């Protein structure tokens, strides 16, 4: 097996505050291989975006990486200085954010934004860069790319803008793309187009993708493996088919059950009692135990097993026993 593009080992992010240290990401480990889409799901505040920001070195101070290491193509990147990580962003790591309007500069033509990125990272002339900008727009399916390259962001619809952002993320041919809620602001039919585009590009170029979203349906269709996060920790990690169809962590099970699709034909939706704990009031032991239907004494005392080295399925003392799924 080839070495993974991205390796995260025991990553912990701390935010020191006057009232103590908050830990939005707590001992998270996972890998993403070339050409693989890893879905990272969780509810608001689960730490999924914070982990993504840690990888690209965009943590807002005072948030910082406390322990753990992040390796990109075998090299540590969490210890790099500001300038070094800046050269990496855009070149080795592409980013796609939720709101395409805020990730594009409204005052620059999209062609200029694309060429700017390429000239900063690749050894190209202006003419070559422009040619590649047009090719990149064609590749993400923007009709009439040769003309549209001189348009401003406001002249595009939401779906087309997100395509431009994807072109921008891909133009320096990065080995990893971090897509943080890339389709949340889009309509269902446009969402399907963007997901299909991401899947195709990832497969054709062998780019690793970290797809951060709260939408289980998107994960099911796009991801190869899925990491479920809860209160800063990894709750369950595994192939998407197994985790979503036969979850063994009680939190994943509850989350899947509360989606309206899973309750079709029932009067009431299954609900997880309570709410995710605030970071300054995490319960002792397993963070999920106050809401878990299977809690036993050991869950209340000990934080529970961790998913380490990207292996293992669920961080739980008493995972739900499942028949082997085919």
């Amino acid at each position, binding site marked *: 097996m080839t070495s993974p593009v991205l390796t995260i080992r025991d990553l912990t992010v701390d935010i020191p505050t006057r009232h103590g240290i908050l830990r939005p990401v707590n001992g998270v480990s996972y890998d993403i291989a070339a050409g693989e889409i890893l879905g990272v799901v969780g509810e608001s505040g689960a730490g999924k975006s914070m982990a993504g920001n840690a990888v690209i070195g965009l943590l807002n101070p005072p948030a910082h990486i406390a322990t753990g290491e992040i390796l990109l193509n075998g090299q540590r990147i969490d210890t790099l200085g500001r300038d070094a990580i800046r050269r990496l962003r855009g070149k080795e790591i592409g980013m796609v954010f939720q709101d395409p309007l805020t990730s594009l500069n409204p005052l620059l033509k999209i062609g200029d934004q694309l060429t700017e990125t390429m000239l900063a990272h690749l050894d190209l002339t202006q003419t070559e860069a422009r040619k590649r900008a047009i090719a990149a727009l064609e590749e993400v399916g923007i009709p009439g790319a040769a003309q549209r390259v001189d348009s401003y962001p406001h002249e595009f619809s939401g779906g087309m803008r997100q395509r431009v952002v994807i072109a921008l993320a891909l133009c320096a041919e990065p080995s990893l793309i971090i897509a943080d809620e890339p389709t949340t602001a889009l309509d269902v039919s446009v969402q399907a187009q963007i997901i299909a585009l991401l899947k195709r590009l990832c497969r054709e170029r062998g780019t690793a993708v970290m797809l951060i979203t709260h939408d289980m349906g998107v994960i099911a269709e796009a991801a190869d493996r899925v990491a479920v996060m809860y209160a800063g920790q990894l709750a369950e990690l595994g192939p998407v088919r197994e985790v979503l169809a036969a979850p063994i962590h009680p939190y994943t099970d509850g989350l899947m059950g*509360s989606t309206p*699709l899973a309750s*079709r034909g029932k009067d009431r939706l299954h609900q997880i009692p309570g709410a995710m704990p605030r970071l300054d009031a995490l319960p002792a032991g397993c963070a999920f135990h106050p809401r878990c239907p299977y809690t036993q004494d050991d869950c209340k005392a000990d934080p529970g097993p961790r998913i380490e080295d990207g292996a293992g399925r669920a961080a739980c003392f008493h995972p739900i026993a499942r028949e082997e799924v085919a």
Partner: protein
Amino acid sequence: MAIVSIRNLTRIFDVSKPWLNRLIERKPKALLTAVSDVSFEIEERTVYALVGESGSGKSTIGKMLVGLLRPSEGHVDIRGVDLAHETDAAKIESIRSDIQMIFQDPYASLNPRWRVRDIIAEPVAARGGATDGLAERLLEQVGLSARDAGKFPHEFSGGQRQRICIARALASEPKLIVCDEPTSALDVSVQAQVLNLMSDLKDQFGLTYLFISHDLTVVQHMADRIGVLYLGRLVEEADPDTLFDDPKHPYTQMLLAAAPKLDGFGREVAPPQGEIPDPINPPPGCAFNPRCPLAADRCRSERPALRTIGGSRVACHFAE
């Protein structure tokens, strides 16, 4: 009995540039038809859902129903009273207190400087009603604690805020609540809690909901009847089972195929082609014809009327 009857409802917005700009640039007036000739009825104690993508006119219909916008043409009758054309102030007042609304963003729809008690009692206090203990009672009914009445909105999470919005909507003992994307800003597990609460309250108080959403799975769970909107037009209406098992309009079919499936592992869908057309210059004939696989010449010239087919109403020349 139908509590709401909407007939030939149309709303046109004037989105022209200012007069002088039009004169200099020789541009005509630009009129955006947000809702075009929509008719449907909502039965008492049911949930009617409007689904559609952005720009389909679903929120505009909701706003016209509660009286926040006036219809350009057509009528909205609530218990036989047309709010936009009724002149008897007493009748208008009695109908108004029967309608309430819940908005999408619980962060924007609660005044951050008011205590929860005042927020919840406002619809009653505004009409001079008695508000003693009202907020505390309603808070417990929506699953919060009576002690929360003295707090401010920022002390609550998104799901709890939406519960406060629901409590406020219930304060004036309405019959009809228009819910505009009530759970779109919430996480899945919180969404489940809020949807369950809404179902319980509906049974308890005999409420009728107009449920506006873009989320097909939520609509399928909540609705008794679903209307699908495209570019301001009602293209299909059916009960959930019929709509999801046997969608008749090509747009509904496209929408259902595009929606992510929880068991759609590695599903390769041919994504829908094209985008929603410009509502200022909608295509002639059927609004869906530029994207429709079935489109024929007739679709480009003649707008299809809603036809009743089985339990559905469909606006397509070729549906059967």
